[in-house]
């Protein structure tokens, strides 16, 4: 942008074409260089120290046999990784992470799209309904987790009361590891689908109306128009949501911590890393190894996604 301005009367010193200045610093380039550093460096330094440095430190810690709080540690190379992948932990934790991520991402996006369609109806009350649908997304996971833990409580929860009303016993949501996972997934989707709904709603409202009208004149019904026009045209939105929801699902912590503190059946990679370091064991090195595994998975997914999407996504 600034290059287009080099001939402006207010900046006669800049009148030379940019090409002739290549290789040496004009006063203005130098000034911009320092302006950039002054503006961006504090943020970049914080990101470097508290986001990137920990990645490197994690890799180092993951090679240690080290109890958190202890002053001595032994270098054990890749032993922590070997322990993780050869123990029963790996299939358990990786499986839980996979199920949790796939179901919560898929559930939030599909239900979010359905809610977006409901919100897109031309009736009164959509503004309030949109706010209501979005609200859980901004609420404290700790608060929400407690509320739902009470609802799911097999003894005094409203769900068990409803089930007794139709002559059913409440499932053991807390004690059964598989049901615990189902419970946390339900609450996670409840909390996050409003975000998908609002983003999808924006996508729906930006669809070209003339295309829709042409299709309906050609006799395409609502479902056909939805599948053949809306879905393909929404693919950039879908891609955006896929990335953002997958990242947040892999970071899900609050609900798991509040609803299933012991991680019984709900120990995803992130939760296992937390439990190993800050739970009963204080195994810092082992926890760091699990964090590195998580980061590697995240990196692979991101790269694959970016490659895949370049070919598949429709950009209008």
């Amino acid at each position, binding site marked *: 942008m600034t290059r287009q301005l080099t001939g402006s009367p207010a900046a006669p010193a800049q009148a030379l074409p940019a090409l002739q200045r290549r290789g040496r610093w004009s006063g203005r380039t130098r000034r911009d260089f320092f302006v950039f550093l002054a503006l961006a460096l504090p*943020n970049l330094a914080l990101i470097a120290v508290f986001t990137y440095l920990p990645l490197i430190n994690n890799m180092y810690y993951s090679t240690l046999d080290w109890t958190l709080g202890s002053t001595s540690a032994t270098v054990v190379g890749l032993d922590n990784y070997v322990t993780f992948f050869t123990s029963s932990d790996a299939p358990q934790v990786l499986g839980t992470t996979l199920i949790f991520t796939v179901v919560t991402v898929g559930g939030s996006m599909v239900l979010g799209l359905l809610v977006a369609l409901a919100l897109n109806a031309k*009736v009164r009350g959509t503004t309030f309904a949109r706010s209501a649908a979005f609200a859980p997304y901004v609420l404290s996971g700790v608060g929400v987790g407690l509320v739902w833990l009470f609802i799911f409580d097999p003894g005094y929860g409203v769900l068990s009361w409803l089930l007794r009303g139709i002559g059913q016993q409440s499932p053991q949501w807390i004690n059964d590891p598989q049901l615990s996972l189902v419970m946390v997934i339900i609450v996670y989707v409840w909390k996050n689908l409003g975000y998908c709904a609002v983003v999808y709603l924006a996508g729906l409202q930006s669809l070209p109306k003339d295309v829709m009208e042409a299709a309906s004149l050609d006799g395409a019904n609502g479902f056909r128009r939805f599948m053949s026009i809306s879905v393909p045209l929404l693919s950039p939105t879908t891609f955006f949501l896929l990335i953002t929801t997958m990242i947040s699902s892999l970071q899900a912590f609050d609900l798991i911590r509040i609803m299933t503190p012991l991680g019984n059946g709900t120990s995803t990679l992130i939760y296992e890393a937390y439990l190993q370091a800050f739970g009963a064991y204080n195994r810092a090195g082992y926890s760091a190894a699990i964090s590195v595994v998580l980061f590697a998975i995240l990196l692979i997914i991101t790269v694959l996604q970016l490659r895949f999407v370049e070919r598949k996504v429709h950009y209008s």
Partner: protein
Amino acid sequence: MSTLSPVSPNSASGVGTLKAPDAGPELPARRDKPLSRSNLVQTLAGGYIPLIVATLVVVLPLLWMLLSSFKQPGEIVTTDLKILPQGLNLENYHTAMTTVPFAQFFLNSLIVTTVGSTVKVILAILTAYALVFVRFPFKNIIFVVILVALMVPPQVSILPNYILIAGIGGKNTLWGIILPGLGTAFGTFLLRQHFKTLPGSILEAAEIDGAGHWRRLWQVVVPVSLPSIATVALVTVVSEWNDYIWPLIITDRPETMTLPVGLTLLQNSEGNGAGWGILMAGAVLVIIPILLVFAALQRYIVAGLTQGSVTG
């Protein structure tokens, strides 16, 4: 309304009504038989019922929280469940606030949220401006570095950050809670995407008038970007207020705990059937402030999220 889309038998999907607003010439048709039976059924099935179901699914659990927070233990530990509490009994709130120092938690959360969000929003504005409007080599590489940071879950960093912050005396301090989260990739990313869409002409005009970067930033870019900045600010406030894993790890004394961590403390001491009313009172105290902020500023967050998704 649905009279405008007669070829839309499947209007339950809502898509069929999309073209309604600009159908100006057909407007008289709307007055045809607005209350005809098929029209009513279609509006209900296609419009109101899904809308009401979606709203209830969200509202009912929160309403249940509020109602239960007024219930005595005897009203909760019972097989004869009543939906409404016997009265507006504030006993649970009193117990919650005396069992654990809730006022202190609230103050701590307020300080952490205010200081953390203010610094983060300013850093995001400065960095995004630099990335878009200031000439610098390797800007794309720097942007990629920020993008990748966006992909790194903060949870991956908790152990090294704990060791770092605890090592410099930040355990059980408010600055120890605030500091590691101050670098902002999200805000920078969102504002950069927005700044890129600003018409170059307004900045050119300011530059011709002799305005330097500082004035262009605060007098041109920031004023026209207020909705995006409000979005970043709101999202930051919400995430600082709700932040859990980091304060949970770096504090173990009530004096410096934030509200979500304090609620965990309450859960540990009231984690039996009779304590649910007290826990719901605690949940109300954590959830209501953010609900109020959301109610006041949601216009911005919805508009901003739309921009983020369409241009991002």
